């Protein structure tokens, strides 16, 4: 039967959806429809990001795509009986998911194709505005591409928030026979998954973004450093790279432009520190992921000693949108020095967790309550941690803080990679502070003393505070504060340097938890 006459059903192939049973749903649909004599065409799209609705099945009807939420494989026969293939209403029915209140208020610029396209199909990507950014770039001078990125106000979405255009300009200005684009896909922060979703659900956007970066700075080689914890993403990326090469979007003479660019994937090996850019470069070169002392900056002396653009997946996947819609369009989102949008990731103890892309300026409260719907446990929210394991804990009294780089810095916190983890009132904040130090000890590369030794001494101190008598506790709390000072000012990189954020914020806002018997 011709595939055009078959009804198309979308079942996400995203790792998160699969972790909730999406593969079994797809298999059951295939089997059941075949048995009923109405075979279907199943597309394994990415996830749209509403993980609280996964497995989210969509069917293509003459009136558009119709969604069904929280589908279990055992329910597939009932779902079909209830008219899935015609988009009929049933208890799973959600209608057009883009009109759902959870999606309608989002501002999707980077994640616009997530869950919409078939991530294996480059033509589907092109139909959805893919490669229009590259078309523009191929007709521009490299300096003009760099200027467009600078004008857009885009800052590094990996966590450090360095202006992307300035980084590109530095690499552009270096005279070197070989330059590199190194994509950091070592998304290790707890509470974050936007890189993974893009790699699995819209991999061509990253490939296009890296290609544009290559054209802009004069680099012909790209590397993607992908964490080994992401096997689904590795497969999706390998497929997409193969297709892009076959279709002339990668390799020699891209789209008959006379320009070359190709990408290799290198797998990480389970080291959080390799998300730090210089440590990642060491690892890409096949060594222990020990951080490098800066200067020189990677933009001047990076991978294999050559000028290198190091950017995160989200940053690079946003580049095509900027070139295609224009720098001004992107810059018009956001506030202050935080321009554009962020794919926030709402996670942990939250009722409606997932990917929420909004312009900077959304408040923590809006994110946690309007999108998240409060805790999954139904208990009161006590704290959120923003920006991964190195981010600060905020109490409810600070939930009106707008999510942008400057506002969070003013709260002694950071936005990081945009992850927000929600905790209910059963959380023991002394335990979380101890964990922050323990994590630092486990993941420290060992190169500098404040991080390597300070983290272990910190764990011991917290243990002592929680078991000691009132008399010595005040002294130990002061010592912990001093230790945080040493780590913050004396560490070579952000791991040791930022671990004090979660520790100090827990101490400041939840001091009542730092009493004996607090940690078992």
């Amino acid at each position, binding site marked *: 039967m011709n595939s055009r006459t078959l009804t198309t059903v979308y079942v996400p192939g995203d790792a998160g959806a699969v972790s909730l049973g999406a593969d079994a749903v797809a298999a059951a649909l295939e089997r059941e429809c075949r048995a009923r004599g109405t075979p279907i065409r199943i597309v394994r799209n990415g996830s749209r990001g509403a993980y609280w609705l996964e497995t989210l099945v969509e069917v293509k009807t003459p009136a558009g795509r119709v969604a069904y939420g929280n589908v279990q494989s055992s329910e597939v026969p009932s779902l079909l009986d209830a008219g899935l293939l015609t988009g009929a209403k049933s208890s799973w029915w959600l209608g057009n998911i883009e009109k759902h209140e959870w999606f309608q208020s989002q501002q999707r610029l980077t994640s616009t194709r997530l869950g919409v396209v078939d991530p294996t199909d480059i033509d589907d990507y092109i139909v959805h505005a893919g490669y229009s950014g590259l078309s523009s770039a191929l007709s521009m001078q490299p300096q003009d591409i760099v200027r467009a990125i600078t004008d857009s106000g885009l800052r590094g979405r990996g966590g450090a928030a360095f202006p992307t255009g300035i980084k590109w300009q530095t690499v552009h200005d270096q005279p070197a026979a070989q330059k590199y684009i190194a994509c950091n896909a070592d998304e290790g922060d707890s509470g974050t998954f936007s890189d993974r979703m893009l790699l699995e659900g819209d991999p061509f956007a990253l490939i296009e973004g890296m290609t544009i970066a290559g054209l802009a700075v004069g680099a012909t080689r790209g590397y993607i450093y992908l964490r080994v914890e992401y096997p689904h993403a590795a497969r999706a990326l390998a497929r997409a790279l193969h297709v892009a090469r076959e279709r002339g979007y990668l390799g020699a003479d891209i789209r008959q432009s006379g320009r070359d660019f190709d990408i290799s994937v290198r797998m*990480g090996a389970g080291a959080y520190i390799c998300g730090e850019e210089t440590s990642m470069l060491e690892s890409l070169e096949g060594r222990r992921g020990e951080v490098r002392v800066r200067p020189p900056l990677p933009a001047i002396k990076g991978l294999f000693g050559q000028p290198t653009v190091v950017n995160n997946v989200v940053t690079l996947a946003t580049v095509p949108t900027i070139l295609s819609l224009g720098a001004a369009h992107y810059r018009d989102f956001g506030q202050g020095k935080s321009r554009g949008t962020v794919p926030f990731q709402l996670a942990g103890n939250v009722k409606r967790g997932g990917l929420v892309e909004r312009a900077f300026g959304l408040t923590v409260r809006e994110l946690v309550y309007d999108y998240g719907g409060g805790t999954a446990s139904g208990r009161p929210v006590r704290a959120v941690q923003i920006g991964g394991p190195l981010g600060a804990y905020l109490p409810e009294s600070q939930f009106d803080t707008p999510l942008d780089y400057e506002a969070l810095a003013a709260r002694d916190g950071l936005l990081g990679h945009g992850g927000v*983890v929600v905790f*209910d009132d059963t959380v023991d904040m002394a335990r979380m502070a101890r964990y922050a130090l323990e994590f630092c000890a486990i993941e420290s590369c060992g190169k500098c003393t404040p991080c390597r030794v300070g983290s272990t001494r910190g764990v011991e101190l917290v243990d002592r505070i929680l078991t000691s008598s009132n008399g010595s506790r005040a002294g130990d709390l002061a010592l912990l504060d001093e230790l945080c000072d040493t780590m913050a000012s004396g560490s070579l990189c952000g791991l040791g340097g930022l671990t004090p954020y979660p520790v100090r914020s827990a101490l400041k806002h939840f001091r009542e938890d730092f009493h004996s018997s607090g940690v078992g």
Partner: protein
Amino acid sequence: MQRVLPRGASAPRAWHVMSAANLERCVATAVARMGGEPGPLIEILHSVQNELGFVPPEAVPLIADALNLSRAEVHGVISFYHHFRDRPAGQHTLKLCRAEACQAMNGNVLAEFAKRRLQVDFGKTSDDGKVTLEAVYCLGNCACAPSAMIDGQLRGRVDEAMLSNCLDGWGVRE
């Protein structure tokens, strides 16, 4: 990625009887696959571990020779990264996420449960060689916490009943 480790309880442990010639061939293939690519060590270690399930200490001098590195440099890289192991894992591997988002969803209770059922700590293999229990720090599935990777399969919203079923299926005694 294909593992050649035997899964059945009574299957012979191939890695114990692996000949020096087989190991040499495995390393040579891994080295050749990287061609002249710069900085190939970690990729080579991945190839060897994907093939054998671990990086045998006997492979270290072979890899060092092929790349003109010292044994210490190769050993240093293996020991730096949590992913690489220098001995075989159990027949099954249970990786539990220990990071914040999973802790917010009772991940600690789940971790204690797994340790109690298996009678081992994280990073260890149960005495009968059946199950290796490992801590991971984020599987990128934080909106579906708590998460686990069970023999390479990612699972979300894991609870004690699910873990218990899985361990029962592997023949782990109560």
